[in-house]
């Protein structure tokens, strides 16, 4: 079972995924505020990361539930006479 999902940081105010950063490989530091290039608002980087972590937890949970359901269905099928 392999499931993939790309998670992007989203502006907390307008949900845009574009931020103004000095360069493409720039890694913001904890506690830093990063500016949304769409609405111009400053977003707390730590909070953005918490939201993404929550999204990834939800995704993993959903996939795990799906997998468990598949196994259950296969077992039920194979045990049927």
């Amino acid at each position: 079972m392999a499931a993939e999902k790309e998670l992007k940081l989203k502006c907390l105010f307008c949900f845009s995924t574009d931020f103004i950063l000095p360069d493409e490989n720039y890694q913001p530091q904890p506690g830093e505020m990063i500016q949304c290039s769409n609405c111009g608002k400053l977003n707390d980087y730590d909070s953005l990361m918490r939201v993404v972590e929550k999204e990834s937890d939800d995704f993993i949970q959903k996939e795990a539930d799906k997998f468990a359901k598949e196994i259950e269905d296969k077992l039920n099928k194979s045990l049927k006479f």
Partner: protein
Amino acid sequence: MDREEKEKWIDKLLVFMNDEVDNYGHGVKAITFNFSENIELDEHFHLFNENNPISFENFSQVMNICISRKYVRFSAMGGGRYDWLQLTESGQGVAISSLKQDKSLSELGDINIGTLNSNGVAQIGNNNVLNIENMLINLVEQIEKSDATDDEKKQAKSKLKAFLEHPVTKTILGASVGVILAKMGL
């Protein structure tokens, strides 16, 4: 309530909820809120209303936006209209970002412009200096000091003069053009 006002109230509400979460020292999931109107005075709508007076009708508009943007979610069904509510990670993020935004604005302090008299174009800023005169005088000095021939120096300076005398440049720099040309000996 206009859109801008609603956004301000969203910030206030989320900051209030985040403060409550912080007070208990648990994660966002551990705290549930009851913002129902007709309920005991120690419930959250009244607590919020104490410091931020708002009608329940306006409060409903603000809370509905928070729910639709997933800043706030229902942790269970049943109860009152705004019972069993939880702050989400996004809602907490907005609260923290808003607080930090306000803080960085207040840290800027007051900008004292004083009296400004300008007949032409003026630039107002904080900690910036507009000094076109010095820059251009410096440029002429650098041309003079350079290893270029006299003809080349003359040509460079005449192009600079033409630039300064151009109608567009004159409009932007106003009366300063004459002063700059005189100071530069052009």
